[in-house]
């Protein structure tokens, strides 16, 4: 009888090896280790054995069953793994096919740059102050030390409206006057703001010039604001905006509302200062104008210029966006062609 058991076990193990799917495994299980399976049959047939042989035989049969069950578990796992492997192989896709289109919303490139300005200047304590687009000539020019017929008016071609003395602001600088008068509390409070906004110039629209463009002006007024602060502050900004090791050059210039006035050049980040067509082979990119607030302007803002001082700067988000992203035509900004905008 032991031989019979041994034969069954051998047969069962061989059959298990051949079972290669779930169905065959199920059939094997009921045939060999199920309630009516071959091993059970052997146990049932023990009735005809002498009583002293029964325990030995019973133990052998049980051990065989345990072995077969373990072999079954192992085989079942293996079959399952093979089946999974087959499924995975069969389920592969061509990953080079395009994905399902997800239309993405997005901000206008000017807004993106404006936000970057808000962020960097905000970290330095500058809050955003906005003022109107349609301005009084008096605020846009005269209060900023540009009296009527002053040669400096030639620097800014102006849109005049049919109302005498009402123009479209040519720069965000009139915001300096508004900010000083509104926030300065009659020249008693310090100020640290940036003034973003749309400005307008009477210029032919070309790849390089537009009739409307954003400007971001900065204004600091305090009891102890020095030109060295202006240089330090602008340099910090340039390092964060462009490149931590960017070289910055301050060049004397002229704006009627600041004195001393300067243009700020930053080492061309496209060619590392070696010279390219964007920087016109000078190695420098002009990024902003700035200066110490002219005493006349401080006075017009309600401050006593012998006690208070300040600095101001102005930069063009579109110009900086163009430099950063290699945009060669400023008309793209208000052209609203989605093929351009969707790149941002």
């Amino acid at each position, binding site marked *: 009888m032991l031989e019979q058991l041994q034969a069954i076990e051998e047969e069962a193990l061989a059959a298990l090896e051949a079972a290669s799917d779930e169905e065959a495994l199920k059939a094997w299980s009921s045939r060999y280790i199920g309630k009516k399976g071959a091993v059970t049959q052997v146990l049932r047939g023990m009735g005809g054995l002498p009583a002293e042989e029964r325990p030995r035989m019973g133990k052998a049969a049980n051990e065989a069953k345990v072995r077969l069950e373990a072999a079954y578990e192992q085989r079942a796992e293996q079959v399952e793994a093979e089946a999974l492997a087959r499924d995975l192989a069969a389920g592969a896709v061509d990953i080079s096919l395009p994905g*399902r289109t997800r239309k*993405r*919303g*997005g*901000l206008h490139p000017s807004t993106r740059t404006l936000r970057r300005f808000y962020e960097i200047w905000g970290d330095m*304590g500058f*809050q*955003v102050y906005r003022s*109107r*687009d*349609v301005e009084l000539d008096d605020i846009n020019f005269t209060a900023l030390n540009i009296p009527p*017929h*002053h*040669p400096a008016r030639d*620097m800014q071609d102006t*849109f*005049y409206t*049919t*109302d005498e003395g009402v123009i*479209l602001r040519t720069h965000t600088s009139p915001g300096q006057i508004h900010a000083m008068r509104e926030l300065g509390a009659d020249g008693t*409070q*310090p*100020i*640290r703001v940036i003034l973003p906004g*749309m400005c307008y110039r*009477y*210029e032919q629209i070309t790849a390089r010039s537009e*009739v*409307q463009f954003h400007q971001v002006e900065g204004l600091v007024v*305090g*009891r102890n*604001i*020095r*030109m*060295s602060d202006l*240089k*330090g502050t602008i*340099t*910090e900004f340039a390092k964060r905006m462009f490149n931590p090791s960017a070289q910055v050059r*301050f060049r*004397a*210039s*002229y704006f009627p509302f600041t004195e*001393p006035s*300067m243009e700020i050049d930053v080492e061309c980040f496209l060619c590392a200062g070696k*010279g390219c067509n964007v920087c*016109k*082979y*000078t190695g420098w990119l002009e990024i902003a104008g700035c200066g*110490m607030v*002219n*005493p*006349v302007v401080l006075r017009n803002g309600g401050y006593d*210029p*012998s006690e208070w*001082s300040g600095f101001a700067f102005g930069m063009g988000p579109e110009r900086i966006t163009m430099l950063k992203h290699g945009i060669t035509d400023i008309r793209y900004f*208000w052209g*609203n062609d*989605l*093929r351009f905008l969707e790149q941002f």
Partner: protein
Amino acid sequence: MLVPVSWIKEFVEIDIPVELLAEKLTVAGLEVAHLNYIGLPQETVDGVRWPESHHLVWDREKLVLGAIREVKPHPDADRLVLAMVDYGGDELEQCVTGAPNLFPYKGKGALESPLWTAFAAEGAEVWDGHSEEPQRMTLKGRKLRGIYNKSMVCSEKELGISDEHEGVILLDQQPTTSDGRPYPAGTPLQDVMGDVVLDIELTPNLARCFSVLGVAREVAALLDKPIRQPSYDFIAEGAPIDGQAAIQIHNAELNPRFTLTLLRDTVVQPSPEWMQRRLKLVGQRPINNIVDVTNYITFEIGQPLHAFDYDKLKARAGGNTPTIITRLPESGETLDTLDEVSRELEPHNILVCDTAGVLSLGGVIGGAETEISDQTTNVLLEAANWNFINIRRTMQSQKVFTDAGTRFSRGVHPSQAILGVGRGIELMRQTGGGQIAQGVIDEYPQPPATITIDLHIAEVERLLGMALPIDDVADMLTRLGFELTLKSEMMRVTVPDHRMDISDDPVVGQADLIEEVARIYGYDAIPNTIMDDAMPPQWENTALEREEATRDLLVALGLREIISYRFTTPAREAVLVPAGGKPAPWADAGYVTMANPIASDKTVLRHSLLTSLLESAVNNQRYQQSQQIFEIGAVYFKRTGETLPQEPRRLGLLISGERGLAEWMGDQAPGAFDFFDVKGVVEALIDGLHVDGVTFQRTAHPSFHPGRSADMVRDGVTLGTFGELHPLVGRAFELKSPAFVAEIDLDGLLTASNADFKSRSLPITPAVYEDIALIVPEDMPADDVLNVIRQAGGDLLKDAVLFDVYRGASIPEGTKSLAYSLTYQTDERTLKDKEAASIRKKIVKAAEKRLGAKLRG
């Protein structure tokens, strides 16, 4: 402005490379835009970046100073001569040339004094004088009408000095070094006439630099070198000027000074070569010595001059002493100016006249009648001063821009007139001969006061952020020509006449001087510091923050931001209102109208964002099957009685085309956008901004489809309108597919936004869910049904969501079935099905009673 370095060197020594000088000038505010090299090589200077120049560099061996000793006839050609040139070699070189300016010397034998010229030896590279386009060529030997030739004498064009190719360069005399030693034949041409012309862009504050001398003063200050003034003396050997002319100034405000000198018995002829060459380098065309001198002085010291033919003036005065009168025009007066324009004079145009009428537009342009001609022998020279604002107005209104006017319009000090008139008349005498009348006629009714400023050394530190020794500050100001007396902590500064940019206001004047100190000290040398001033008080900026949050919301909803021109035309906006439509919401506002529109499609500022949204959609529809765009920006409403317009912020958005596209995966395309897409965006916006209490009502806005549009109303105020664009408007814009648009009062919406909204806790008991379908009349708004369900459901009804609208055979005609899924829940206890059933019964009953609805079985 063009300034040759060789000319600057007449007034100041320059011992650094031109490239470094240009960098120093640029950093000091005289922005050098270009360097135009004449024959000299470009130098590389450490730390200075200049674009590479592609000019002709004169070979030091092959392009040299030549002396023509004889001009022989060509044996076989009348139109050619043989120039025998001493180029410093052992023998004379024979050059075949057709230069017309050598023909007067043809066949005269050996010349007593040689003709000094530019000689190019075989192998030299020059510009091709016959080529229209700039083209280089290398000299090679060849026969010219039978005579072998391998070198040449050069024209200015061949050397790249000017476009002049009429004749070869002939110097007036043997050229010399700056200390007067003559250059021998064979000297490299680079040393004799090599030059660099600085092209400087001058800002309005730099009127003082509008001359070679003015730039030289800056160079002297920057390089710490002395300035050499030109001579303003003249040799007057003629009878005195007294009684030869008179001056009457009628308006001293507009004409503070007028001076005259007289040159008799002179000859009008071409200017000397050196003067012509300099004038050409600064962009002037030489005419004759008299006119050239007026231009030369204008460019040299910045004082414009004007020369009259004295005899013509005398004839106009009927043989009497001419009287020069400066005055404003009488009505109807006209003037024919030198540029051959007949001008109608305007009331503010200051004029130079005589007793017979108008002579010239003062300080701007002369009249044709008394101009210098070849026959002129007696020259009356004017140097005057004019009010700069008035000259600006005249140039702009008369649209005439001259070198004289440009300088006067920036500001010239009246003290310069007397210098210019003296130096000018002497140069005319030197170049044309004659006798200068003794004396000057000088009317100077309004000499301006000399400005003095007290500069406190503490102010320098307060504004620049660094302490400078008072002696250093004094030194820098002295270098710039300021005169000063020093006290311990203060200096009294006297401003030189040419510094008209320094204010006489004590505080502003100090700032002006401190700027000069900073400029000469060098902006790069001033330290960088971090502000240690008090931080100003911070304030809330919700308007901006919420505007940016709105942008983020719309972007998250898949919309793309656009920014449009804020200009439009009334006609373009009129397209938004179809014929016969109700007036637009902005109809009662006026337009901000440009007095000088730049283009016919940009005459006013917009009232609405819709036009630019629709125009963008039209432009994009060629490339895009689907568009979802928005714009945030101001519109401009002009109100009567207010000087400045209102500038409310608007949010506009537009959705058009396909919601999605069929792709290779074979999914079904989701179809075209409709009203409910734009409503979905509006609802998400309201939800995202936490604006409570907005209801939707049919709108009267004429730009919208009357049946598929709504106003957003809150507390009785319309916050905006959205829906399908009126088909007539879409057609007028030539839109290919329906557009779903919104225009919202952003200020109103954001004011209603509740940033401190309260959140709800999560439920702690299970909910009971149930569906209900009600049959109601077709025209009943879904909102009415929902309101009844909500009211009848009471507090226990947590939510009611419409999930189906059915019309069809299984319900009566003229009705629709609205199916809602209802959620019942309370935190107080777990609801039993029985409770839910009784609420449901209440809802059905209310719907039957108040809406005439029937439960769909």
